[in-house]
């Protein structure tokens, strides 16, 4: 394609265009049948600020509202974190609001669980029922008998507050199905979860992150910008994703071998002394141990593991170090890949430490100050409660406030260490996002009461006893939220309803406030949203006015380098190349590489990997009418040579099977994936009767994924499954 400019038959050089502007009016007049169209009048719309809720990025938007109906969502140009954009999902936010399948009233299950027989009930009856069931469970099983799970939502903080006031330690979010391994690794290395300053970077290695499809603002756009300014972006991915297609360089790395690549980078940087000796001496600890650890981990060794040529690894290590400190191994986000994902991500963190990029432009920067005040709250103490979470001490370094969904589920099924019999779910959907759907179902079957608050009837809601309708983010008032944008600083957003809440929907805040009264702890919710915002903004007196005027507020952002000379929040107060904490816990203090385990079954040849499309936010968006036009079904990406061996042709329906379950979907025969790997989108093959675009369409990836978890932090490990693939009908 590089020589396409010479194909003048098809691509005509338009030199005239830039110079002949004076002639254009004449051209227009001479064109056939030119005439003047009537004047078009501007729409009579009101423009209202909002923040998108189609994924976790929360891009600032402007809703165009005509006679109470949202006509269009546009990017808010003052919201610079998203570089003034709104993606396909953001645009499709209108369809989420007007989805005919939305939950409209509180619904009580009247048939068997999951059978889909519901009765519409009033709010009073619904909330009385929820309160009395929660009281019963607390009385029978202690207050920790209730599990609270809330998704990535601005009001999820109220679910956490409620759970604490109610008295349960059992709170999970989506994060233990997503990003905790990466957070664990960076906290244990840097004492913090840093942000990448992509915009000023000269060299970025993206491993296990597909930023051109799994959009993160502003990183996705900035990666394109910096490449045009001469920066290099290297993508390691077993798939030719759009990130791979657009990168300066792509390597189809063997899945599960990223750590070998990173340790080889460390080997080259240390043996060739390409690191900043002053930074490493003053700010890190454990260089000698690391040097000894990686002494044999040469590029040639890594080539055998990763499939990436040694010469390329050597070159990339040198290029990366030469660009430092404006260089990085991108920390990534979803890191729920392998049972050793924390250690894999530790190897990412270690290479960054050697680059000396901490708190430097183009490197990894600490979270910028946002100036928001916490709204204080003293949770009561209930002395009959068990000592901790139901998943406590299951792994050495569980995040206490996040836990592990996969281990919590296991323990609920076992009924140990104590019974957990109630589940309050807000806008998260483990039936479609947690590996091994049958286990999630098994867990639900152990429950005595399950209530789900959501906009749509997700697969998880479909399993509930009681479903409560929530408004979309365009129909409600929200607290202030701080968002981070690399070195550019934090920004604050809030939401006011751009239209009144549709149907009988109620924000979870109101639901919880009512329940707090019924359950006897009204003091936990002794405020409304405006009051709560005031308390949050107490230190930023000008913020509220600016939020009203611009839809976004930028608190003062001190220059980078503010942490120079400051201790890191680690046991040694330095960046821990060698982890003292891990040594104390009996864990490998340096990431020890082991080749990824081969499939235990010769019939299951393919490793199943997960990933994203820019038009899909897992199961929360696949039923969206507009987005379903872009991703109408999921397909199994199958390498063309593997397909030939299996006798599978383009579009054939294939049967995919793992020890967890099976599924049928069409094959996408393509050179864009390694021969040993298959991939499909999540969010299809759903079971809810109110998801007409996805139920019975494609295969469910969580039906196929085995239930594995990160041995250090309990994050799910969703790339540990091998599947068999055969053409439907074949022997």
């Amino acid at each position, binding site marked *: *394609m590089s020589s396409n400019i010479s194909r003048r038959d098809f*691509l005509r050089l338009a030199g005239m265009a830039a110079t002949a*502007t004076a002639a254009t009016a004449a051209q227009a007049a001479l064109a056939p049948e030119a005439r003047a169209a009537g004047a078009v009048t501007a729409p009579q719309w009101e423009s209202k600020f909002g923040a998108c809720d189609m994924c976790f990025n929360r891009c600032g938007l402007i809703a165009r509202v005509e006679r109470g109906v949202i006509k269009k969502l546009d990017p808010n140009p003052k919201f610079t974190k998203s570089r003034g954009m709104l993606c396909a999902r953001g645009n499709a936010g209108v369809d989420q609001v007007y989805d005919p399948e939305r939950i409209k009233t509180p619904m009580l299950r009247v048939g068997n669980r999951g059978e889909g027989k519901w009765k519409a009930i009033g709010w009073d009856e619904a909330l009385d029922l929820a309160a009395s069931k929660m009281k019963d469970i607390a009385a029978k099983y202690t207050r920790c008998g209730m599990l609270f799970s809330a998704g990535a939502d601005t009001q999820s903080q109220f679910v956490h507050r409620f759970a604490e006031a109610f008295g349960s330690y059992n709170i999970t979010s989506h994060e233990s199905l997503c990003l905790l391994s990466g957070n664990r690794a960076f906290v244990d290395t840097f004492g913090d979860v840093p942000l990448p300053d992509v915009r000023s970077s000269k060299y970025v290695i993206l491993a296990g992150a597909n930023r051109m499809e799994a959009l993160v603002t502003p990183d996705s756009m900035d990666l394109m910008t910096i490449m045009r300014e001469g920066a290099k972006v290297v993508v390691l991915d077993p798939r030719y994703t759009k990130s*791979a297609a657009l990168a300066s360089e792509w390597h189809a790395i063997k899945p599960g071998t990223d750590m070998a690549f990173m340790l080889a980078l460390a080997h080259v940087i240390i043996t060739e002394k390409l690191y900043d000796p002053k930074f490493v001496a003053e700010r890190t600890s454990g260089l000698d141990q690391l040097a000894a650890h990686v002494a044999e981990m040469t590029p040639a060794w890594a080539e055998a593991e990763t499939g990436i040529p040694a010469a390329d690894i050597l070159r990339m290590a040198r290029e990366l170090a030469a660009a430092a400190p404006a260089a990085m191994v991108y920390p990534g986000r979803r890191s729920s890949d392998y049972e050793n994902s924390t250690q894999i991500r530790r190897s990412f963190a270690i290479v960054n430490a050697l680059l000396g990029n901490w708190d430097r432009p183009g490197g990894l920067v600490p979270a910028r100050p946002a100036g928001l005040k916490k709204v204080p709250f003293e949770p009561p103490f209930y002395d009959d409660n068990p000592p901790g979470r139901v998943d406590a001490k299951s792994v050495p370094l569980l995040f206490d406030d996040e836990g592990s969904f996969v281990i919590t589920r296991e323990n609920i099924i076992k009924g140990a260490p104590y019974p957990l019999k109630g589940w309050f779910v807000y806008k998260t959907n483990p039936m479609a996002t947690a590996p091994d759907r049958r286990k999630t179902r098994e867990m639900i079957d152990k429950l005595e009461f399950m209530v789900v608050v959501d906009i749509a009837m997700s697969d998880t809601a479909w399993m509930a006893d009681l479903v409560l309708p929530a408004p979309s983010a365009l129909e409600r008032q929200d607290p202030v939220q701080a968002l981070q944008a690399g070195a550019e600083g934090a920004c604050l957003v809030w939401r006011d309803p751009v239209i009144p809440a549709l149907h009988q929907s109620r924000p979870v805040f109101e639901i919880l406030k009512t329940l707090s009264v019924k359950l006897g702890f009204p003091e936990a919710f002794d405020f409304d949203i405006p009051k709560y915002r005031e308390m949050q903004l107490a230190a930023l007196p000008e913020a509220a006015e600016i939020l009203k005027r611009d839809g976004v507020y930028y608190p003062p952002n001190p220059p980078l380098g503010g942490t120079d000379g400051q201790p890191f929040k680690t046991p040694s107060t330095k960046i821990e190349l060698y982890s003292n904490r891990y040594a104390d816990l009996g864990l490998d203090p340096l990431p020890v590489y082991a080749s990824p385990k081969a499939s235990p079954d010769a019939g299951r040849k393919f490793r199943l990997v997960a990933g994203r499309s*820019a038009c899909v936010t897992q199961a929360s968006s696949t039923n969206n009418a507009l987005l379903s036009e872009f991703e109408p079904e999921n397909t199994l990406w199958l390498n063309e040579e593997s397909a030939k061996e299996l006798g599978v042709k*383009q579009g054939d329906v294939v049967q995919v099977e793992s020890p967890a379950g099976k599924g049928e979907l069409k094959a996408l025969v393509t050179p*864009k994936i390694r021969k040993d790997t298959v991939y499909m989108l999540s969010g299809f093959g759903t079971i809810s009767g109110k998801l007409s675009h996805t139920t019975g369409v494609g295969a469910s990836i969580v039906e196929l994924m085995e239930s594995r978890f990160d041995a250090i932090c309990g994050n799910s490990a969703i790339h540990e499954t091998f599947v068999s693939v055969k053409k439907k009908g074949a022997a």
Partner: protein
Amino acid sequence: MNAKLAMVIDSAKCIDCKACVAACKQANGVSRGVWRNWIKEAVPPVENGKLGRGHFQPGACMHCDEPSCVIACPTGATFKDKADGSVVIDPKLCIGCGNCIPSCPYGARFRDPVRRIADKCTYCPERRAAGLPPACVDTCPTKARVFGDISDPNSDAAKLLAANQGKVVRVIAKQNDTKPNMYYIASTAPDGWAVKPVNPLSFDALSQVVAPLVKYAVGLSGLGVLAMLGRQLLVGQKPDVGTPHEGPEKDKKEDGHDAR
């Protein structure tokens, strides 16, 4: 001086996220299954046995200076707007005959399955009247699409063209330069996808003979409606929803061809 609206696209910036396509559908109420704009994917090259750099190409109606669709239209519903150079469909005059669809070498036109008339990119006139850029331009994450009046040297589009003088290309049909007003910076891919415009033979003759004004009058009088009714019914039978049009679904099918 009259305006000349154009789109200047830096396709090397495109990440194929489909934001422009979604924004267009939402802004213009485009029916399910049809698309006013698109992103095409170049077949990636194979270098040393592995796939090389990819390239994505945003597109839509190019509002040509010599639009074949205007000639193909029997009623004068499709015309070139004198004031701004855009190619406009007057829905009141369109009889849904479908002649314009194969006449466009770029597949930019389709028959709206609900309104049963021709449809394509309009550059969002309502948004422009409100002082906003077209929806696809406004929403683009990497600002690959730039829109403006290229006869105004101060417009973003004119400035971008000027800055890239000598490096701007247009996608055209082989030996059929309709003078599109969609400019791609530096180089773009895929190419060779534009087809030869197809006009009904009888109609070619008619359009040569009959003065534009007469055609317009025919359209207004309803004669065109009668004349083309038979054709409309025939076209209506065909599953021509999005036919010449490369929407995302078609993109996906092409994945399988990449190895060639």
